[in-house]
């Protein structure tokens, strides 16, 4: 009995302490922002940053805050946007849709002119209608769910990351236009990622003329031997394979194909664009195509952004840092070029004014996807991936 009460006591104590510290933390944050606001002379332009800043997905959201702050600090030091300083408003949604709507309401109340966020696709979707009603331009560095832009429901939404189906689009275009394939077998690993990509590829191939899908099948991941499916690919007369999945299955299928003298192109995704694939499949990996994010590491702006981050935080940047950095640059540029914080003018500027970012020179299409951001096709040549398109 005594023991039980003791445990109860410590638990309560722990929870209350946690609450105490969190309030202290929150209030200190608030103070910082107030100080910043006091510094500004002209009414500042407010950029909201919303995303997962706590919880298990915090590592996806915090780099975006850092990226925005770096861009803003630099811009403010250079005199701000048309003489107006920029202020950053941060809201946490913990990647949860119900918190995301709260965060959105709070940002609108605080007078945010534009918003960078949210991070997760689900939370972004929940918050978007609130921003839409409030006429706030929203730009996500990381929400990849295709309908967010493609449904046309959210004209205020933009993103600096390619949507999930862009890879499938890339694979299909490459297969049809570059390799001139006519009969394509689509294989996937029955997982969310692999099957999702495979289904997009099938859909896109269905829309195109002149090519048909001769086989659409899933294999059991971790299987011992894929020779039966490889024989089926041959039996159906496929002249190319599109595979959605990860490298362990891909290397087994590729090996089985080469061993059976089936020398047709094998095109896969960034689950396969991995050094392990080349290491495991060895000589059989030669000639395999895989799509992967465009290599931007040699872009001077990328090098500069990473340098800045290292200087400010003493560590390498985290997930989606470059996408967020580019989003901040794009928004700042759009406000500057349009000369106002008016919704319609910012949207028009985003679509027409190209801006140099770590992801290359980008502007946005009518649906809100960044033109020029996306994937490249790589091919294994002499034991390494080489960009071919």
């Amino acid at each position, binding site marked *: 009995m005594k023991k039980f009460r003791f445990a109860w006591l410590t638990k309560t104590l722990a929870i209350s302490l946690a609450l105490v510290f969190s309030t202290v933390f929150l209030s200190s944050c608030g103070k910082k922002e107030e100080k910043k606001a006091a510094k500004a002379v002209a009414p500042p332009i407010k950029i909201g940053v919303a995303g997962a800043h706590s919880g298990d997905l915090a590592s996806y959201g915090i780099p975006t805050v850092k990226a925005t702050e770096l861009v803003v600090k630099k811009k403010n030091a250079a005199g701000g946007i048309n003489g107006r300083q920029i202020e950053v408003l941060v809201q946490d949604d913990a990647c949860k849709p119900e918190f995301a709507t709260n965060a959105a309401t709070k940002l609108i109340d605080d007078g945010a002119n534009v918003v960078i966020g949210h991070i997760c696709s689900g939370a972004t979707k929940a918050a978007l209608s609130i921003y839409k009603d409030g006429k706030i331009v929203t730009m996500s560095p990381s929400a990849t769910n295709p309908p967010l832009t493609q449904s046309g429901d959210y004209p205020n939404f933009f993103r600096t990351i390619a949507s999930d189906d862009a890879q499938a689009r890339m694979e299909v275009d490459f297969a049809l236009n570059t390799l001139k394939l006519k009969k394509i077998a689509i294989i996937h690993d029955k997982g969310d990622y692999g099957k999702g990509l495979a289904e997009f590829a099938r859909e896109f191939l269905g829309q195109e003329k002149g090519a048909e899908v001769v086989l659409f099948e899933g294999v059991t991941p971790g299987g011992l*031997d894929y020779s039966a499916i490889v024989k089926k690919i041959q039996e159906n007369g496929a002249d190319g394979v599109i595979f959605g999945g990860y*490298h362990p299955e891909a*290397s*087994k299928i590729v090996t089985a194909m080469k061993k059976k003298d089936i020398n047709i192109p094998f095109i896969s995704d960034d689950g396969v664009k991995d050094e392990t694939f080349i*290491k495991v499949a060895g000589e059989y990996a030669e000639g395999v195509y895989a799509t992967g994010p465009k290599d931007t590491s040699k872009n001077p702006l990328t090098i500069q952004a990473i340098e800045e981050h290292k200087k400010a935080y003493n560590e390498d940047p985290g997930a989606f840092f470059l996408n967020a950095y580019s989003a901040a640059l794009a928004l700042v540029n759009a406000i500057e070029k349009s000369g106002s914080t008016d919704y319609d003018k910012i949207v028009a500027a985003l679509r027409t004014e190209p801006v140099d970012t770590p992801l290359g020179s980008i502007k946005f299409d009518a649906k809100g996807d960044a033109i020029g951001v996306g994937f490249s096709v790589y091919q294994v040549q002499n034991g390494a991936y080489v960009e071919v398109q």
Partner: protein
Amino acid sequence: MTSSFFAEKEIYNGLLLSRTIILQELINFLMDYFLELLLGGLTKGSIYALIALGYTMVYGIIELINFAHGEIYMIGAFTALIAASILNMLGLGQITILILASILAIIYSSAYGFTMEKIAYKPLRHSPRLSPLISAIGMSIFFQNYVLLAQTSDFLPFPSLLPEFEFLQPYRHIIRSPEIFILFTTVVVMVLLTVLIKFTKVGKAMRATAQDRKMAMLVGVDVNKIISMTFVIGSSTAAIGGVLIASFIGQINFYIGFIAGIKAFTAAVLGGIGSIPGAVVGSLILGCTESFATGYVLSDYEDVFAFGLLVLILIFRPAGILGKSSSEKV
């Protein structure tokens, strides 16, 4: 009149001939595909069989489903990989490496099997049957994580140690020498085990232990030694399987034993657990079912067909295809 008659007949004959040719080609074409699927299925089946043999043997002697058997197979593959890498640096030939790596794998796997029995199963020999089963699952998890920590979580390439015979080159699209090698080894191991159990003194002691442990002890059978020996032999077959399968597939990681173990266990149950030829028959049927399901239906449903077959067979023959339905000892 006559000429036209002949012409007609010729056309008719020609038609008949061309139709026969087309039919023949169609049959050839279908048979080729069928044959390839069948051989693929047999190879897959014999891969399962190499692991299933150990399962069924241990079950036959002490009625324990040794869930860690798949991990012994995985450890055998890892030992062979390490040995092959070292031997390769010494510049030895392919066959020498294969034989030396296999021997090392057998020694290591046997040691693991022997120790595992002493640590995890022997203290539980008089407990209810559920306890050693749970202990086996624990050993399986332990070995996986042990290899994960001691080696790596990544997939590692495994060199193809099996030789390619020149005379088979023209038929390589149908069957390749590694496949023949695996099929052949499975049959040899099965025959050797059957001979061992049926016709040797050790085998007789094993059968006695299986029938009645206490009585076997009374007539002078060293039961502990026999059980240890069963584990050593079971682990050796797993090690041979590890070397052959890994060099056939070309990649290994710490998790391969679990997946292969589940399939091999299914095969052993299908064929009648406890029966040596049953394990091989069950494995071959399972492999062919999967191969044909992929080839003629849809590979998405490969496992549905495999396990559907298992359910059907267990409904009509609860002891498995070659299993003996013996009444429980009371």
